[in-house]
């Protein structure tokens, strides 16, 4: 694990995508209510 900073960037990208998807579900839930 010598490339720690890039690891953090990549896990950050995943976190961003996961949170965006979760918020998307919440937004769609509003739309379908």
């Amino acid at each position: 694990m010598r490339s720690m900073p890039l690891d953090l960037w990549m896990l950050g990208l995943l976190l961003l995508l996961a949170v965006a998807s979760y918020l998307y579900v919440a937004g769609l839930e509003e739309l379908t209510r």
Partner: protein
Amino acid sequence: MLLDIVGAAITFIAVGIGAWFLAPYLVKVFTGERVFLSPVLRPVERGAYWLMGVKEDEEQSWPRYAVAVLAVTVTSLVFTYFVLRLQDHLPFNPQGFGPVAPDLAMNTAISFTTNTNWQNYTGEQTMSYFSQMVGLVMHNFLSAATGIAMAVALVRAISSRQLKTIGNFYVDATRATIYVLLPISIVAAVILLSQGAVQTLSSYPVAHTLEGVQQAIAVGPFASQEVIKDLGNNGGGPFNANSAHPFENPNGFTNQFEIFLELLIPFGLVLMFGRVVGNVKQGVAVAATMGIILVGATGLAAWAEQSGNPALTAIGVTQTNTSTQAGGNMEGKEVRFGPIYSAQFAAATTGTSTGAVDASHDSLTPLGGMVPMVLMQLGEITPGGVGAGLYGMLVFAILAVFIAGLMVGRTPEYLGKKIESKEVRLAALAILILPASILGFTALSVLAHAGLAGPLNPGAHGFSEILYAFSSQTGNNGSAFAGLTGNTVYYNSTGGAAMWLGRYMMVLPILALAGALAGKKVVPAGPGTLSTDTPLFVGLLIGVIFIVGALTFFPALALGPILDNLQLYAGHLAGG
């Protein structure tokens, strides 16, 4: 050539027969009825629920179903990321491969989790057996099962049952894995093994060549991986050459068998849909729509490839089909497959979300290469990925009845369920994410230095290489044009984002659509109801798919493969 056409036709017919018989089995599996494998598999299924702490009869609303999909996705994705990053400390690494770089590990983890299997690496030079078998093949089952589960949820919602819920994701995914993917994989792996596909855990044997040098022959546990690669519409092969490699795809029979595996479950699910909604003809109409486009695309690609390369014709090279040569454009193709089988494989792999290749798509003629590109841009609905094709096509069907409703001024309905503004908005969201991601990332890449560093060719062909990459990744296909240096931080990151957007930003509105349709009262058909099981509807659906799906991409295609084709016939070679 005639024999090749007959062989291609027999393969399609075999798919139709196989899917017809698979459909009633799928109905029983997903309604929890007893099937002939139940005595053996039911205890395994119960054990899986016990391990996961899942209550089998507990139904989920669509947001709970969606969150379950996301939770399984993120957990398994992080697991694979660390398997790849730490493979040098893990077992089954006889070649002593080092850790996979962070950006490549993330791209690969997203790729396999989203059923894309885009590969910015050479498998036999990068991945340990452990990474292949545990980190990657796990997703070949899980991502396929997830796709099937989401399609089943939408079918339930459209059917006439009066529940507001859409099933249980964990149960659907478990049943898809245990009753569908695993049994077919075991039987098909034995068939591939009998034909010469390789299956071993030994280290690479070393051959001493006639020139006196040593050559390591890459082998591995690949026959089993090959089957789920095709059956689950994953496409990520253990070899860089993918299905062009004789250890993955030894002969003409296995080539057609792999095409059969790619198409079997997607068509089976569509026919299952007809049975679940209580009208087999509804499933047949959707399957016919998919089949007509797929056969047409295969014919166009086969014609383009068999016609050969005009630049070679101009300098007097014979590309005609004779008793001693297949003829046509043979650049980047295997002699044992020839242009027609290769074209059929290209259409099947991109009509589904498989992305396996038995020929270099970069070496297809411009028009031949445009066919797989368009099939991916349509959203891979002909017949589409396992599950993904069915839910993608049902969204187009909903859009088609909406457009038909606008024409005659009636509230549209599909299978007795009123399609209102809420449903149309969700369908539009699902459809628009594809062009937004494909065209957005392509535009960014032709503007950014890091993006322009990728293509190996200048001009129209280079543009096609970028457009193909984002079409493939957003469409969760995974096939590569192979003319793009993708293993860079830029392409690994943007590609990873495109794969995620293409999978979840498309499927979440579809699950919401399922939630909106679930429990809606079924209105009996009246004299003004548009029948959705007739040839007229099939024609309408094909029209909507091409108007909405294909015309969105026409300007981009004009800059890529269409211009490439015109230049080729005018004698201006890209990069020449």
